[in-house]
């Protein structure tokens, strides 16, 4: 019985990819281990090896096909004694059961060894930002490209800006955020470090104290716990301790929070942690435009800035204004969608829950206002409170742990500054109070979900 060769998944969350090249033709004999094709994602090219022995009977998906779904049949392998005519009568699919997928949009789960799918994520519509002049041409851009463009533009503008971190140069970035920077700026300014977070965070801060403007990439912010002493004790506090003489103009950036199926030690959100620290600025963008405009601002900022990205968002596309020098203000929230019945505040990937919930709520006749904080510190409470004064109801959504969360702080501030305007208690929606589990179903339970947001809105609007 001929064997179906299926499109392989290269990561737990990959849904599709490009079949860039066949290395075997119909009629070629293959043995297990032969490379038969190449698959391309937006991050890397991976080889597909034959698992069984036989003859390629039929190539079902031709080279150059984009968006091939995982587990689709890409070729038929004939075994001894079978002919091309047999190719059509394959056995019941030898299809492996696809693992349950997290709700999160497709993106890869682990650093670059396993590449990501090709731009599987749809382009997201975003309300106009008042910081972008009306009529500005928009270009669909992934968050990944936006971050890279921001760094490249700032490095062209200022010779004191350099990027350092693990795999940022020759490997082109573990998540390909620094793609092309080594080629343009050379090894003096795009510096591969050893695996040594505590050390290179300190080296970065020292270089910043001497007047350079480092961008320190952490492969993930989970690894930055190794370096958190340098970030807090050296970077954040020196300006104050020196009576204003000496600070650290430095950006610490990298993916933060849960990806998909990477377990407890790689799935933590640090927004609340860093937001606790005077002397730091903390930025956590959702859209590609915000990622670009705020990263450029962060690099120019004379203070240490924690720039929290999200792996799942890297491959998502948004409109980015085509401007020569697009810089957004740090510390200013963006009203993502105007509404009058309830205020939903979120940031980073939390926005995806708010946005999906809002669409459903609209169908139920509830007009929600969505605020994207964009910056966690300094926090734009004025925008939140102005909205609460209009809607009289507030929900905060984030993926981090619930105790001492960003939402807790906002709820506290709103209760102190706008108590008389509240018609219902503030509801904070956060990740569950558990280490992130690995199992797909448990992980889904541990993260916030759209249903929780809708239930919270119904509760505060007394529906």
């Amino acid at each position, binding site marked *: 019985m001929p064997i179906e060769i299926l499109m392989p998944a290269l990561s737990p969350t990959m849904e599709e990819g490009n079949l860039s090249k066949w290395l075997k033709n119909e009629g070629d004999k293959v043995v297990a281990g032969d490379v038969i094709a190449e698959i391309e994602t937006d991050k890397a090219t991976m080889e597909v090896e034959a698992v069984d022995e036989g003859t390629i009977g039929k190539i079902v998906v031709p080279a150059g096909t984009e968006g091939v779904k995982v587990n689709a049949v890409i070729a038929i392998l004939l075994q001894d004694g079978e002919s091309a005519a047999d190719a059509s009568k394959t056995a019941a699919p030898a299809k492996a059961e696809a693992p349950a997928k997290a709700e999160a949009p497709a993106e890869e789960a682990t650093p670059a060894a396993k590449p990501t799918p090709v731009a599987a994520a749809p382009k997201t519509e975003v309300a106009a930002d008042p910081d972008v002049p009306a009529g500005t041409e928009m270009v669909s851009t992934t968050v990944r490209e936006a971050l890279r463009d921001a760094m490249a533009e700032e490095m062209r503008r200022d010779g004191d800006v350099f990027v350092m971190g693990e795999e940022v140069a020759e490997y082109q970035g573990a998540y390909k955020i620094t793609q092309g920077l080594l080629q343009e700026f050379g090894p003096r300014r795009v510096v591969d470090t050893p695996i040594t977070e505590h050390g290179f965070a300190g080296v*970065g801060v*020292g*270089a910043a*104290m*001497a007047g350079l403007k480092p961008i320190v990439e952490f492969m993930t912010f989970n690894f930055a716990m190794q370096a958190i002493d340098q970030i807090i004790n050296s970077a954040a506090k*020196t300006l*104050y301790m020196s009576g204003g003489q000496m600070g650290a103009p430095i950006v610490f950036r990298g993916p933060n929070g849960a990806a998909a199926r990477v377990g407890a030690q790689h799935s933590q959100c640090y927004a609340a942690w860093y937001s606790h620290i005077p002397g730091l600025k903390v930025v956590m963008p959702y859209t590609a435009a915000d990622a670009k405009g705020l990263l450029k601002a962060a690099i120019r900022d004379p203070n240490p800035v924690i720039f929290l990205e999200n792996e799942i968002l890297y491959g998502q596309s948004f409109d980015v204004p085509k401007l020569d020098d697009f810089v957004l203000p740090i510390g200013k929230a963006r009203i993502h969608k105007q509404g009058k019945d309830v205020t939903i505040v979120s940031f980073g990937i939390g926005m995806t829950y708010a946005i999906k919930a809002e669409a459903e709520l609209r169908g139920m006749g509830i007009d929600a206002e969505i605020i994207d904080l964009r910056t966690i510190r300094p926090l734009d409470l004025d925008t939140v409170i102005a909205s609460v004064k209009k809607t009289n109801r507030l929900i905060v959504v984030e993926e981090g742990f619930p105790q001492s969360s960003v939402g807790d702080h906002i709820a506290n501030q709103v209760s102190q500054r706008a108590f008389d305007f509240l018609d219902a208690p503030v509801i904070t929606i956060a990740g569950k109070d558990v280490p992130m589990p690995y199992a797909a179903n448990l992980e889904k339970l541990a993260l916030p979900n759209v249903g929780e947001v809708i239930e919270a809105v119904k509760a505060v609007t007394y529906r």
Partner: protein
Amino acid sequence: MATAAKKAPAKSVKSTSAKSTGLAAPKPAEFTKDEELAAYRHMLLIRRFEEKAGQLYGMGFIGGFCHLYIGQEAVVTGMKMALIQGDQMITAYRDHGHMLAMELSPRGVMAELTGRRGGLSRGKGGSMHMFSKEKHFYGGHGIVGAQVSLGTGLAFANRYRDNNNVSLTYFGDGAANQGQVYESFNMASLWKLPVIYIIENNRYAMGTSVSRSSAETNFSHRGASFKIPGIQVDGMDVRAVKSAGDQATEWCRAGNGPIILEMQTYRYRGHSMSDPAKYRSKEEVQKMRSDHDPIEQVKARLIGKKWADEDELKNIDKQVRDIVADAAEFAQHDAEPDPSELWTDIVL
């Protein structure tokens, strides 16, 4: 940065010695009369300043932690004599001597100790946290070992700018057991960064002796795994320090990368003011004071060579005491910071 060194190895320094980590200490250079007198004056300023700080602490003018440098004066004084304009210095929290050596104002340092508005950090840093961009002094750090990565970063900036400057990164025998020290060694050697790691081995990490805390007690060998050469230096002899400093700065300026200087020194006082120092005998301390005191050594040479007599040295002592008295007077009477200072210098 990850490319090979830009500059050729120094000719006058054996560049091959990077392979074997233990270098012989250079013979202490003979000082000229002017050098001896300068060393005497600078060390004495630190000694008298620290004695006064101890006194003010006892009177309640200085609070919190206060780590005195008495006994170790030759280390910063000799190293300072090997520097050129723009070379940076960074250290941990036993830092008053380093500040005075880098010519930060005694008034500013003392007023910071008393937490007054005229302090170098306007009263917001304290004993452990003073800085001066102008004098290239980068603190003053309270987390054991953290300044080693930071100092490596200063050297990174020198290399990035391709200037001729060297980062003097000080730490103690205790900090030498911290992990980030070795992370920094690795990067500094890999990238050939111009940094001199000065390990001030004063034999005790707080109350724990070197032999009780360290598997390798020869700290000049601590760079072995990273191909960083090291020299063991008599840190009580300012001439030996200066000679080692000259060799080390030359090594760094020639593009050879980092080097370690283990300064064998001794602190006469406790770890901090609140340390009764029961982990060592009074005799041990007394023997160091009588046989190896860095200031007495210079004094003996000055008198022996008839470069100065007792009266002239007393005169220097008086000048130094006047400077210290003025600093102490200022630090006791300067106003406390304005309450509005609480909210400044958090972010720019």
